């Protein structure tokens, strides 16, 4: 899976501050269990992919994984041993900006025990603190 946008308006973006909690993408919408971020941070495309691979190795055949975030933001860096100046560096990686409360992945078609086991493995690949959340009962 190609984890970067197909078309962008600008190649490079400013870093920006991550303020507040997630006000969207904060509920389990597609599956029964979700992996929720508890810290603000950037999750790179590689880390997201590592999480997906960890899940596919851990899950039995019937489980279904949904990735709820996408790396829309480019992060630039300058080559090593380069003097300062001469403009902004080239895009190095693509990241997803997450806030506390953002649901990163969702799982469906499995029981809680397997979901907990799978998310535990995925949590090791994440650069932020995460926890398991369950789909809320409807009222």
């Amino acid at each position, binding site marked *: *899976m*190609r984890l*970067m*946008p*197909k*078309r*962008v*308006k*600008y*190649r490079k973006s400013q870093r920006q501050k991550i303020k507040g*909690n*997630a006000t969207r993408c*904060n*509920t389990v919408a597609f599956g029964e269990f979700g992996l*929720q971020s*508890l810290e603000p941070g950037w999750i790179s495309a590689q880390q997201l992919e590592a999480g997906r691979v960890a899940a596919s190795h851990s899950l039995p*055949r*019937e489980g*279904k994984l949904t990735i709820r975030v996408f790396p829309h933001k480019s992060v630039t860096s300058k080559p090593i041993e380069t003097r300062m100046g001469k403009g902004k560096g080239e*895009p190095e990686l693509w990241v997803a900006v997450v806030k*506390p*409360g953002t649901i990163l992945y969702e799982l*469906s*078609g499995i029981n809680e025990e397997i979901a907990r086991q799978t998310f535990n493995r995925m949590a090791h690949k994440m650069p932020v603190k995460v926890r398991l959340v369950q*789909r*809320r*009962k*409807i*009222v």
Partner: protein
Amino acid sequence: MEILELKAEKRTTKGKKGTKRLREERQIPAILYGHKLDNVMLCFEEGQFARILNTGARMVRLAFDDKKESVLIKDIQYDYISDRVIHVDFSRIDLDERIKLRIPIELFGESAGVKGGGVLTHVMKDVEVECLPIAIPEKIRVNISDLHLGKAIHVKELPVLEGIQYISDPDAVIVSVHQPAAEKAVPEEELLAEPEVITKKPKEGEETEAKSA
């Protein structure tokens, strides 16, 4: 179904500051509306409401101002980090009047399609029904043991329950079993390709070429 009682008080505090103060005192702000009567702002103890939620009740008997009213829990707002309930909406109901609400669907049994290598997709997790308040089912159980590969269960095939009418589209799919989708191999060139820049200005050479053409 037993209707549980919730003791509430009328509140005058409203707005961000007022409700924040209430929540610090372990109280939940709520509102009662419906039946073309005036809205009533209420508050009640957090622990009391948690006990009611744990029973899975959709209806409560609200006791406030020396009177009791049967109400439906219409909406619950949560704090997504601490999981605390931050606000509740109650809707007045008449016990003889049919109401519309969503009921969760629970699947049971082992699908024949899954045993044959298919993937089960639970598309619709709740269904809209119309029923009397006293006949609200906790959940609708659907047997999927006869669900074969390439087949689906629709709303019109749901079990018929006495006094309950399904409102959702009868042809809507609830659960289906299909072949597992094979992952498409993305060519390496595409993986390494840079995204197309929409606002990119054409270079001087390209511009003159375009003009001459």
